[in-house]
């Protein structure tokens, strides 16, 4: 099993969620994060002075999937999250050693 972490633009969340559902991915966890990278931050004005806020709101998706699904899921997220503009985000793939479902105690694949 692998853990996929995807950092995407917030307004793309619904599309990504739908795309994942379409391919049968029914579980994920997400959190609001701030991103820093190539994408330039936005200007803010405060009483006639200008400031640049360079941490940009992003959404982080975390999903555990079976090894063989990784390719497909990554591509699915990429397609759905794509705008082609700087700041579209990144997808990371990490190894997972075990997964346990709290409710049943099931482990591994069955727990996903």
């Amino acid at each position, binding site marked *: 099993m692998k853990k996929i972490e995807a950092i995407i633009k917030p307004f793309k969340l619904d599309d990504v969620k739908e795309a994942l559902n379409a391919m049968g991915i029914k579980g994920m966890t997400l959190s609001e994060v701030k991103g820093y990278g190539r994408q330039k931050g936005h200007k803010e*004005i*405060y*009483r*006639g*002075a*200008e*400031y640049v*806020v360079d941490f940009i709101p992003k959404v982080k998706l975390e999903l555990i999937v079976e090894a063989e699904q990784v390719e497909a899921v990554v591509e699915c997220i990429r397609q759905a999250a794509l705008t082609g503009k700087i700041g579209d985000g990144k997808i990371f793939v990490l190894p997972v050693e075990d997964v346990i479902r709290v409710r049943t105690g099931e482990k591994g694949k069955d727990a996903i």
Partner: protein
Amino acid sequence: MNNTGDTAFILASAGLVLLMTPGLALFYGGMVRSKNVLGTFMQSLIMISVISIEWVLLGYTMSFGPDIQGLIGDLSWLGLHAVGSAPSQTYATTIPQNAFMIYQCMFAIITPALITGAFAERVRFAPFVIFALLWSILVYNPVCHWIWGSGGWLAARGVLDFAGGLVVHLTSGAAALAAVLVIGPRRGFGKQSFMPHNLPMTVIGTGLLWFGWFGFNGGSALAANGIAATAFVSTHLAGMAGMAVWSLVEWLHRGKPTTLGAASGAVAGLATVTPAAGFVGPMSAIAIGIIAGLLCYTAVSLKSRIGLDDSLDVVGIHGVGGVIGTICLGVFACKDINPAGADGLLFGNPVFFGGQIFGVIVVGAYAFVVSWLLLKIINAVMGLRVSAEDEVTGLDLSEHSETAYS
């Protein structure tokens, strides 16, 4: 004899001015970081207790009691002795004197609260309370007597201040400048940017302030008459003009009109017209609002240059507003509008104009010097600032053991 309409009007106005203090707390609180919002609130709210008690015991008689040499009221009304619900012979003769007393109390409360914006996010609660109490006794009460007390020497010299350009805004603005110099900037000032944590809160505060200002300026007619209506109209028009101009200037200067800019311009206009409200016509009020928007915006922009951390721009808005408002009154005042007032420069009366400038210099200098000394002494005795660590933690936890949001 008490007039029911006048009494209803002044009591309503007193309520409105009281509401301005929580309004100010919100206006300021929205602009600080979330770790300091409660500390910022408390500095305004506690004034209601500290100054009210001072006022009924001492402040009212110092300010409005029988005059001594034009300088101060004597102590014959100490602890509200002989101040009942019969009208005063001297002030607001158509309403209960205790109504007049409590209406004036609300002004005394909000004035030191205004100062707190200058040293937001870094001052300890205890020394602040002591400063505010002494400041009210040594600065507010005397200046109030000079201008509004019967026999006050500045009033005698013809200086006019309808609702507090000198008494409220200039005294607090000058004290704010002293505080900025004595207390110094916040940690990280210049390096970090301190963005407002909750602008909607600031907007709520602005709405309550505007609403309350009708009582602040309108009520200063001390009767529900034509002058009250004139003051009400001037207040609204200067506020709206200040808001329009600040937004516009920011739009041209920075490319966007901001919500905080609109709110700041409104407060600038409202503060600036305060001394003039009941003495000028509507077009003059609009002119005053426009001038306020232009000059306060400029002042606030310059501030950052000279590296003073007047955190929420008390000097730039209330100080500058009090000065230009008082001077504008010297220009735009018109006896056709208010026979009890004066004619200004525009109406061919340079003497009155000069007197207003004199008033600005005297009150500004007095308030600045006394405030500066007070702050220096208190700082030496007990230290005004929170520790570096507490400043990082924020006032809410370090001074009040609370968290605003959870």
